[in-house]
């Protein structure tokens, strides 16, 4: 072993890239994509989360920069705010603390998916091949990659 490195993710991505990470993370957590409600149903509690290190780049002025997923009455809206920050809004009849926990878990999983996809792509470009890949019981994704250097 020659080095052990710990890194904090910094996300700067276009909206379509974030959508694909959201869809993968949401599906894995049992959420399904739903349409925005034309007439908003009143829910007991709403929790807003903004991610400090996640920025969504404006590629166009598309009004569709929102994605809504739902599981067991808990609705999560991902969006890009006016300053480009990636926001998560969790709505439901559960207690606010529980909604916050659900939102933080799901937002974390979105970032995990984003990092996983970017690593897979860039390590492939650098000639690495994947030897092993697994999802650990604690939710972490483990990869072992190798390349031969002449």
């Amino acid at each position: 072993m020659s080095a052990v490195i710990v890194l904090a993710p910094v996300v700067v991505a276009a909206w379509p890239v974030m959508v694909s990470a959201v869809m993968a993370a949401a599906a894995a957590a049992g959420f399904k994509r739903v349409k925005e409600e034309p007439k908003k149903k009143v829910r007991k509690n709403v929790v807003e989360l903004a991610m400090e290190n996640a920025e969504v780049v404006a590629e166009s002025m598309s009004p569709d920069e929102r994605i809504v997923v739902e599981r067991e009455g808990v609705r999560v809206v991902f969006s890009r705010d006016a300053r480009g920050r990636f926001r998560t809004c969790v709505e439901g009849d559960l207690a606010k603390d529980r909604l916050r926990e659900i939102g933080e878990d799901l937002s974390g999983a979105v970032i995990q998916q984003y990092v996983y996809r970017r690593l897979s792509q860039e390590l492939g470009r650098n000639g690495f091949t994947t030897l092993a890949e697994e999802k650990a019981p604690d939710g972490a994704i483990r990869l072992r990659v190798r390349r031969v250097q002449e």
Partner: protein
Amino acid sequence: MESHELEIEIGKDGRVRVRTSGAKGKSCLEYARLMEEIVGKIENRELTAEFYEPDSKVEIRPPARQKQRRG
């Protein structure tokens, strides 16, 4: 020819832990730099015995640039 390996763990919150092996000397820092460009900010780095051995040769292709920030 040398075989270089990376063991990568992506935590539930996206935080990444990487162990490099096989790359000797300062060459392992090239992998640290690559990971920094791909993932984000290095929070912690520990160098181990192989770091002090003669350097391996490492060639890195810079990652595709992330989109530039705009308004």
